[in-house]
Structure formats: structure tokens, C-alpha cells
């Protein structure tokens, strides 16, 4: 059975802090690893990673994949209150099926 595990489950920080969110996986037929941000409704796409060791960056967010150790991290620097959300890690396999982790709830206090 495919499995995706995220840690920590929740995190409370103050504005300006840097956070690291973790995602480990055990799946068959790995295709890609994706990070999504979920606020009230739809998961919003952040990053898609397919190759080990290549960092993807978008503003204050960055992510990297290690296919040997089967994990990924999502870094957020200089956090803002608008970063408060649930961050979801998902692994894509076979015909596009995504297997999700349970999510990390990030709360950023002013």
C-alpha cells in the first residue's frame, strides 16, 4: 500500500521565522512529488518535483526531493501570517493517482 507521511502535524511560529516541513513516502511506481497549500477550500499547487537534488524555488518557498532516501522538504523563509494554512504533500504514481499525506497545519502569529 502506498504511504505518505508528513511531519510535523502542526507548527506554530511567529512572523519572520523560517520553517521546514517534511514528507517521506513509500510508493510503487513513483512519478512525482507535489506540494499543495490548502486554506479554506481547494488545494493550491505549489511545486512538482521529479528529480533528486534539484531545488525548486518560488519567492520565499523552496522544495527539494531526495529519491534515494524517499523524502522531500518544503522550506518557507521569513514567514507571514498569510502563510498560515495546511500544507499537503502528495506523491503521483501510475495513471496520475495522487496519494496524500495527512498535512502539516502551519500557524503564523503576528
Amino acid at each position: 500500500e502506498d504511504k505518505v507521511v508528513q511531519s510535523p502535524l502542526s507548527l506554530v511560529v511567529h512572523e519572520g521565522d523560517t520553517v521546514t516541513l517534511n514528507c517521506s513516502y513509500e510508493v510503487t511506481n513513483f512519478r512525482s512529488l507535489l506540494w499543495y497549500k490548502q486554506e479554506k477550500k481547494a488545494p493550491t499547487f505549489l511545486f512538482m518535483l521529479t528529480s533528486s537534488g534539484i531545488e525548486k524555488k518560488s519567492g520565499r518557498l523552496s522544495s527539494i526531493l531526495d529519491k534515494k532516501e524517499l523524502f522531500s522538504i518544503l522550506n518557507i523563509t521569513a514567514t507571514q501570517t498569510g502563510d498560515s494554512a495546511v500544507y499537503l504533500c502528495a506523491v503521483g504514481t501510475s495513471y496520475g493517482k495522487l496519494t496524500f499525506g495527512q498535512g502539516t497545519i502551519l500557524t503564523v502569529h503576528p
Partner: protein
Amino acid sequence: EPEVTQTPSHQVTQMGQEVILRCVPISNHLYFYWYRQILGQKVEFLVSFYNNEISEKSEIFDDQFSVERPDGSNFTLKIRSTKLEDSAMYFCASSPRYLNQPQHFGDGTRLSIL
């Protein structure tokens, strides 16, 4: 920016009734998906659909569930005889391809079974 749209946003239905959830995927996308999220739990894959056929389905997607693309724009999920445990948020997603292309999600339909 193009979006996946889902209707209704909230559906309340009596147990045993049929329900149809509707989705309009992004217009040039070819792959379509349904996921569900029971309150407090993980997002779970239900089914993927391509070229008018189911590509893959999960164990959750039993004979009570069906999907259809009735025209060039809509993608529907039907639950024939709803159970209390079908109460969840149902998300539709689409992608241009399944390899190396991200899935984009709609805002979901909250289904409440009474």
C-alpha cells in the same frame, strides 16, 4: 487564470438518495480525477478518467459510484445510493497529462448525508 469549477458547493441529501456532483475541468486538460476528504482525514483518491474511460480507481470507488463526461465540458461523479459514511468534501481535479504535469483542484463540494 483558468480554474476547475465545482457545483454545488454544498449538497445535503437523505441517506439512500442518489446524488450527482458536477465539475467543469480546465478547458485544455485531458485527465480528470475525483478525490474525497472526510473531515479531519487525508485527501483520498477515488478515480482517474481519460479518453472517456476510467484509468484507475481506488477500493473506495465501488459499484455505488460512477463517473461520466456527458459533454465536452462537464465531468460528473454519481453516487447511486448514499450512505452516512459518504459525507465528505469531494474534490475534482484535472491535468493536461498525467506525467510531469500538476493536477489543479476545484474548491470542492461538501456532501452531507442525513
